[in-house]
């Protein structure tokens, strides 16, 4: 279903996107195709949601403060609680996980005070306490995600 060009565009430019005025032309040159083909396939990959976006990943706590949060919510209250949490623009990721702590989300705010205010508000509105799990150190070096197209 995915052509070799689709696969290359998914895999090869997660870390090494050329930083130039014409990044798509540069990619086209590397792959030996036209810029229009690159733009077309990227558009298709975005439309089909294989690509979330072509953009930046910001180092945690470099220009804002963030934290992973966890909540233990009775299963029958999970949907409602997740919907309340989702309403906050400070929430980026929000997942159910298989655990007694079953709701996991990431908060980001402009400073620590705003972050603590949002946490207090979420605890008040949902009625559940949170685990506050801010990053202490990031040990991961190999960025990007190697896709296995074989199975």
């Amino acid at each position, binding site marked *: 279903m995915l052509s070799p060009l689709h696969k290359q565009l998914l895999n090869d*430019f*997660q*870390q*090494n*996107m050329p*930083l130039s*005025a*014409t*990044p*798509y032309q540069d990619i086209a040159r590397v792959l030996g195709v036209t*810029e229009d083909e690159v*733009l077309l396939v990227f*558009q298709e990959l*975005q439309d*089909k*949601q*294989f*690509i*979330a*976006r*072509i*953009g*930046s*990943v*910001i*180092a945690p706590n470099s*220009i804002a403060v963030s934290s*992973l949060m966890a909540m233990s919510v009775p299963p029958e209250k999970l949907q409602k609680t*997740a*919907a309340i*949490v989702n309403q906050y*623009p400070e929430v*980026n*990721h*929000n*997942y*159910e996980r298989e655990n007694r*702590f079953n709701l*996991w*989300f*990431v908060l*980001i705010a*402009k400073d620590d005070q*705003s972050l603590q205010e949002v946490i207090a508000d979420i605890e008040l509105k949902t009625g559940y306490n949170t*685990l506050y*799990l*801010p990053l*202490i*150190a*990031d*040990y*991961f070096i*190999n*960025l*990007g*995600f*190697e*896709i*296995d197209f074989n*199975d």
Partner: protein
Amino acid sequence: MIDEIDHQLVALLQQGLPLVSRPYTVIAEKLKLTEDEVLVRVALLKQRGVIKRLGVIVNHRRLGYRANAMVVFDVSDILIKQIAEHVSQFSFVNLCYQRPRQGEPWPYNLYCMIHGKDRQKVLLQLEYLKESCGLKQCASEVLFSKQCFKQRGALYQRSSDKEKSVING
């Protein structure tokens, strides 16, 4: 060191680079800068490590990676750096973080993520990881993700431009 324009630039980059021949001109126009000025700022943000990477951000779930495990360990505070660096070297490990323990309910300080297509395979990879990194004796838990309620690029917004930069809700 990071000014208001950098903040706005990051907010725009988080929305995604436009799919046009000269994408930085689109961003430059919004910030009332030249294309060159934008490129220099992006290069500096990368150099300073604010932008950790710039490129294609894939949607794991859509690509068939649905067995997504967060694994947490309670490891020695003295050895954590050494252990984490070892853990990070495995190709199937996608993230590796240290976070504070939260007492008895959550005594874990090391987090890693394994994205896989198949749960059994992820569990085998985890066993291999534990054995290789000397983690078999450590308390640990595996948390597979179930429902995704929200997933988007982090919003970097100033309180003043909250409305402007809300994206991909």
